[in-house]
């Protein structure tokens, strides 16, 4: 029977879970697949190079840990690495992906490796408050002088620079790409059928009215959405709050003053609960890309999603920007560029300090960002990257970014609140997406920050 393999698997899993709970550093070190692999790679390369891995001259090995393993993301990273290798031929890049959306597997690997003082050269992380765990333990190197030269400082906007700094103003991260969160994508023909003009949507309440019309006039779901995982609804609430009460209120709320803004918070939550009537019926059983596919098929009118959703439109046949789909800033959030960013950092006890600095400088360079972002479907945080490589949609997004008045961080994507607060807020929303009880979620939010 398969029982034997199965129960031994279980036992190993059990140990892993024990290790996972921080039980045994040593055992986690032995069993953690990632650790073993990377150790192995390091030793092999070391012997190939004649043991020069650690020396300053000659080739250095750069191990990059990241979670970009899906199609477009992977291509984007490969383009970036290719450019880096051309620029710095003396560095050997070890590409060590930790698959799992939004770093779910990466955290596990990085944290145990940092505790074991065996970190990779650099790893992917959300900037902003998500760095908090690492900053509190003092395991990130200050790169204010070594990487952030004047050219870089001039080219980044303030909101993004703030995210790259610790509370004392030391630069510790280099943002590589920026996604916009406050988009409302729509299927042009569904809106035309319903007689809704997207240009008139100037507030979340107006969006609610428009969805009512669409519901009455067409068979399509007024809004495609997924509630299976919490983050989509959380990011929707963030933008409803900005659209309804303004970006200053939002900033005040994520700073922890929920009770001071009770009316705004309650009203925005109520709007999300009202939106829910117009979601696709299977919102609770689909992933975000399945929901997004409904917009492509014409089975849904709107979707609120980060601009990574546009990548799916580009890949679909006969679904063109402007003629088939359009987008606008989420109603009420004109002038706001709600930033979701990825960055790379330099952990202490670094195996290859020089190579890591070279990598981080390259991530902050015009060339690196120009290679990476068009493929990833994001915009470069540097404002001086030429437009040529970016299609019409991303060029429009870049224009909005350059002219934006505010670049607030997000809760759902880690930049705006500490991991502890993010976890609490997600807990509140995980109940909300089931019971849509505004009072309950408001009470939990007041305790979450």
């Amino acid at each position, binding site marked *: *029977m*398969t*029982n*034997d393999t*199965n*129960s*031994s698997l*279980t*036992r190993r*899993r*059990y*140990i892993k*879970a*024990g*290790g*996972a*709970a*921080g*039980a*045994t*550093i040593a*055992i986690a070190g032995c069993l953690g697949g990632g650790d073993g692999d990377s150790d192995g790679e390091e030793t092999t390369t070391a012997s190939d190079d004649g043991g020069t891995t650690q020396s300053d001259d000659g080739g250095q090995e750069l191990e990059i840990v990241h979670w970009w393993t899906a199609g477009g993301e992977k291509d984007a990273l490969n383009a970036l690495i290719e450019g880096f290798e051309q620029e710095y031929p003396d560095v050997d890049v070890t590409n060590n992906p930790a698959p799992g959306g939004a770093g*779910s597997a990466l*955290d*596990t690997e990085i*944290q145990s490796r*940092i*505790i074991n003082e065996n970190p990779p050269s650099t790893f992917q992380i959300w900037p902003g408050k998500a760095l908090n*765990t*690492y900053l*509190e*333990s003092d*395991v990130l190197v200050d790169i204010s002088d070594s990487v952030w030269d004047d050219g870089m400082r001039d080219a980044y906007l303030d909101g993004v620079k703030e995210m790259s700094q610790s509370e004392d103003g030391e630069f510790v991260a280099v943002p590589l790409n920026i996604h916009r969160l406050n988009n409302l994508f729509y299927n042009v023909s569904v809106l035309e059928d319903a007689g809704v003009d997207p240009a008139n949507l100037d507030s979340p309440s107006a969006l609610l009215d428009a969805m009512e019309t669409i519901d009455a006039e067409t068979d399509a779901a007024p809004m495609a959405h997924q*509630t*299976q*995982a*919490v*983050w989509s609804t959380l990011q929707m609430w963030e933008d409803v709050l900005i659209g309804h009460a303004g970006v200053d209120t939002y900033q005040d709320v994520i700073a922890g003053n929920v009770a001071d803004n009770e009316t705004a918070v309650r009203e925005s939550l109520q709007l999300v609960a009202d939106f829910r009537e117009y979601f*696709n*019926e*299977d*919102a*609770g*059983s*689909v992933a975000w890309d399945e929901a997004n596919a409904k917009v492509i098929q014409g089975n849904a009118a709107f979707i609120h999603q980060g601009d990574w959703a546009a990548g799916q439109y580009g890949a679909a046949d006969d679904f063109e920007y402007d003629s088939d789909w359009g987008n606008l800033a989420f109603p009420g959030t004109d002038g706001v560029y709600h930033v979701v960013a990825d960055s790379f950092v330099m952990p202490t006890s670094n195996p290859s300090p020089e190579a890591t600095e070279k990598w981080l400088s390259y991530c902050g360079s015009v060339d690196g960002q120009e290679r990476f972002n068009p493929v990833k479907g994001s915009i470069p945080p540097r404002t001086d990257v030429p437009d040529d490589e970016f299609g019409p949609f991303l060029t429009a997004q870049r224009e909005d970014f350059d002219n934006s008045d505010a670049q607030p961080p997000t809760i759902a994507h880690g930049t705006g609140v500490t*991991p*502890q607060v993010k*976890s609490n807020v*997600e*807990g509140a*929303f*995980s*109940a909300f*997406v*089931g*019971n849509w009880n505004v009072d*309950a979620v408001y*009470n*939990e939010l007041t305790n979450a920050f």
Partner: protein
Amino acid sequence: MRSRILRVLRPGEQADAESEQQVRTDGGTSADRPQRGAADSDARADGGVTATADQPSRARRWLDSEFVKSLPFWLPATLLVGLFVYGAIGWNFVISLTDWTGLRQPTYDSFDFEMYEVFFRNVGKGGLLSGPHTQEYWALRNTFVLLVVFTVAALVVGLLLAILVDRDIRYENTFRTIYLLPMSLSFVVTAIFWAWMYNPDTGMINETLRLVGLGSLTQQWISDPQFKLFAVMFALVWQFSGYAMVVYLAGLRAIPTDQYEAAKVDGASLVKMYWRVIIPQLRASTTSAAVVLMVFALKAFDFLFVLFGTRPGPSADILAMMMYRESFGITNWAYGSAIAMVLFVLALGVIAPYLYVQFKRGEL
């Protein structure tokens, strides 16, 4: 840990051994061969005492002693299990007594039960009956419900299947394979299958209900908090009742046919015969199946993680999920370890009374 218990249990099933073996060969199953082998050779070492009765030197005698001779059979396994199972559990307990958070090595200078106090205070916060409940309350409650309901349901379904398959039906092997097959599939695969089937719009379950005119029974199976945990348990029972069936089938084959005949001669009805005569003899099978099924219940983590990420919501949150969030989401290692210990005690607590009763009856 559990397979260790299993191993202890096995010799007690000596009576079933022969026929069990047979079933195994049929089904291409080699589950406990090595362990059984070890048990056998233990027995042989027992019997072999007379062979060493010459007058050798002390070292020679020591080398020939039963203890030393049996070493190769149990020592490697004991060391490995001791280090990787009990060692890990022990270390986990030690960490749960510290205040370890963040990304530095833990300090072992003060130990207290603070993490457990926090956990149980949060469980009771807001009252046990009224609300609002904390995540600790929901996770504990759901884990308990999952352990008990899933285990019992899988056992019952497995027993029924085993009795049906045991009644000399045609294509018996085929049926056995069909029922056992889901267990060989990864949770990642089955979770996605079930997500499709539970889809309220296009899923097979709601479509079928509509087809047979029961449209009023359609539900948002995995998003409605009322049905979420039930839906997950249903899928798990589907996946693992096949395992219970195989274990019971082995048990049924061990019961001599004359007992069936005797019951018939005594005029027992079919139901009465199984209830009074057959099922009471399946206790050992029940124990071993229940232990393994509870391990599978803990594996619900994979299933939930694929469907909902680390936040299944209060209605389906379990301790394993919460432990993962606390540890790797927000690096509260000590608290995560404490949750793991609670989970461990909970699992032991569910099975211990049954093991104890069996032990008293001398059936272990």
